[in-house]
C-alpha cells in the first residue's frame, strides 16, 4: 500500500470522505442540533476536539495494548469505553479551568459520547491501517468535515424555516432529504483523492 500523505487524508476527510455526507455517521446529533448556526458551530468544535484526542488515544491503545496481546476483536467495546471516559474527563477539566469554554461547549460534551462519528473514525483508522500522523489528520479532518456539514445544514434550515412544508416532512424528515441532496453534491468531490 502506498503511504498517503497525512495532509491528503486531512482534506479528503473533510470533502470526499465526509463522516456525515459519505458515511452517514453521527446523524442523531446532526439532525437534533442543526437548528441554529451558533449551536451547531459549538457542537462542531466540541466534536472536532474530542475526535482529534480520542483518535490518537485509541491509536495508542489499539497498537500498544490490543494488537500485541491479540485482542483486536475487542476494539469496538474498548473504543467506546475510552471515548466515554475521555469525554467525562474533559468535561470535568473544562468545567473547572475554562469557565467560558464550559458555557459554549459544556452542555454538548455529554452528547458527543454517543456520537457514532467518533467511534466510526477510530474504527476506520484501524481498518485502513493508518499510522499515528495519518490518524491524527484523519481525526481532525473528520471533525472539521462534520462541523462543515452541520453548519451548512443549520444555514439551510434557517432559510427554509418559514417555508411551507408538508406536515409529515417537518423537522427530521426534510433534514434527511436535504442531507441526501448535500451528499449528492459532495459526491462531485469524489475521485479527486482516494484514501481507502
Amino acid at each position, binding site marked *: 500500500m502506498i503511504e498517503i500523505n497525512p495532509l491528503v487524508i486531512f482534506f479528503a476527510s473533510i470533502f470526499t470522505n465526509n463522516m456525515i455526507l459519505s458515511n452517514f455517521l453521527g446523524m442523531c446529533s446532526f439532525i437534533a442540533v442543526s437548528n441554529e448556526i451558533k449551536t451547531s458551530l459549538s457542537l462542531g468544535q466540541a466534536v472536532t476536539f474530542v475526535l482529534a484526542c480520542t483518535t490518537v488515544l485509541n491509536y495508542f491503545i489499539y497498537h500498544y495494548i490490543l494488537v500485541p496481546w491479540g485482542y483486536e476483536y475487542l476494539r469496538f467495546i474498548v473504543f467506546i469505553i475510552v471515548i466515554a471516559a475521555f469525554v467525562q474527563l474533559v468535561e470535568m477539566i473544562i468545567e473547572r479551568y475554562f*469557565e467560558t469554554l464550559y458555557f459554549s461547549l459544556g452542555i454538548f460534551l455529554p452528547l458527543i459520547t454517543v456520537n457514532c462519528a467518533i467511534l466510526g473514525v477510530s474504527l476506520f483508522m484501524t481498518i485502513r491501517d493508518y499510522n499515528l500522523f495519518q490518524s491524527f489528520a484523519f481525526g481532525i479532518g473528520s471533525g472539521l468535515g462534520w462541523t462543515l456539514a452541520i453548519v451548512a445544514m443549520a444555514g439551510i434550515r434557517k432559510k427554509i424555516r418559514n417555508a411551507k412544508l408538508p406536515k409529515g416532512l417537518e423537522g427530521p424528515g426534510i433534514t434527511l432529504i436535504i442531507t441526501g441532496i448535500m451528499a449528492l453534491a459532495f459526491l462531485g468531490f469524489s475521485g479527486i483523492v482516494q484514501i481507502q
Partner: protein
Amino acid sequence: MTTLSTIAITILVISSITGTLAFLLSLANKTIANYGEKKLTINESKDFVVDGGETLLSSLVDQKVFIPSACGGKGSCGYCKVTVIEGGGQILPTELGYVSPAEQKQGVRLSCQLKIKEDMKIQIPEELFSVKQFDYRVEFINEVTPTIKHLRLTLPIGEEIQFKAGQYVQILAPKYKGNDEEVYRAYSLASSPLDKKAIELYIGLVKNGIATTFVHDYLKPGAKLTVVGPYGDFFYQDTNREMVLVAIGTGMAPIMSILKFMRDSGIQRKATFYFGARTREDLFEMETLEQLEKELPNFKLITCLSRPTEQCQWTGEKGRVTDLLEKFLDDGANKEAYLCGSPVMIDSVIPILMSKGIPESQILYDKFE
C-alpha cells in the same frame, strides 16, 4: 484456546480496562472536580459549610433544608428555584427554559443545576426552614370514588408536623414494577393542622402517573411512606373578611383542611364554598362537608355538576363553578377568595372575581398541574 477461556479472558480484559478508567475518573473527581469546602449563607442568617462541586439542591438537602422539587434534580420540573445573591456564576443553558428573563435579573436559579464552586449567598422563603422529611405509616387507604383514594398517614410516636391549612406536601413514590425512578409528587393536605400526629390526603388517579399509580395500585395499609413538607404560599389568612372558597375535583382537599381548621379553632367567619364536579360520583366526601356545614354556623356549601347523567338524578345546580359564581356571588367588597384546582378553572375564575370587586391581592390560589 477453548471458547470458554476466550470468554473468560475477554471479560477479564474488558473489566480491567473499564476498572482502570473508572479509577482514573474517580481520581479526577476527587482532584479536578473537588472544589474544597465552601461557605453557604442562607438569608444572611444561617451559615453552612458544604462540599464544593455538589449541586446546590443536594447540598441543601444534606443540611436538611428541603427546596421543593418534583423531578429529583434532573432539571425538568423547574420547581427548585432559589435566589442567588452572590457566588452563582453565569446562568447555565440547562436553566434557561425555566427561569424567565425577569427572574434572571433577580438572580433566580435552578438549584439542581447550579454547582457550588465558591462561597455562596442565597435567599429562600423563611417557611422552607420548617420543611422536614417525615417517615409516615399508612393508617388506611379508602376508595372514595373509583378514581380518588383517601389516605390517612400517621407519624411515629414523638414526632409532629407543623403546617398551615391549605399547604401541600410531597410524597416520595419509590421504584416499583414498571417504574424505575424515584419521584416526588405534590399533594395538598386535607386534614386539620391542629392534628399534628397525622395527615390526610386525597389522591386522584392520573393515567400513567408514576406517583398516583403507586398510591392506587401498590401502596398498602401499614406500609411506610416518605413525605417532605409542608410547602406552599396558599394557606388560610387570619383576617375578618368573608371567604369565597372555590374548588373542583381533588382541589377540594386544601379547602377541607381550611374548613376543619376553622371548626377546630372555633372561627366563625362567613364562608361560602363553591364545589364543582362532573358527575354526582365526583362530588366526593359530601358527608364530611355536610357535617362541616352543620358545625360551622356561617358556612354555606354550594355544589354544581357540569355533566350530570340520568343516574345522578341531580336536582341541584348545573354548569361549572364559574356559572355558580356569576349567579350567587353578588358583591366582592371585603371578601377574600381561595381557589384550588386545575389551572384552566383558576384562570377563568380570577377575572370573574375581579369583576365582582375582589382585589387581586385578596385572591389566593393553588394550581394543580
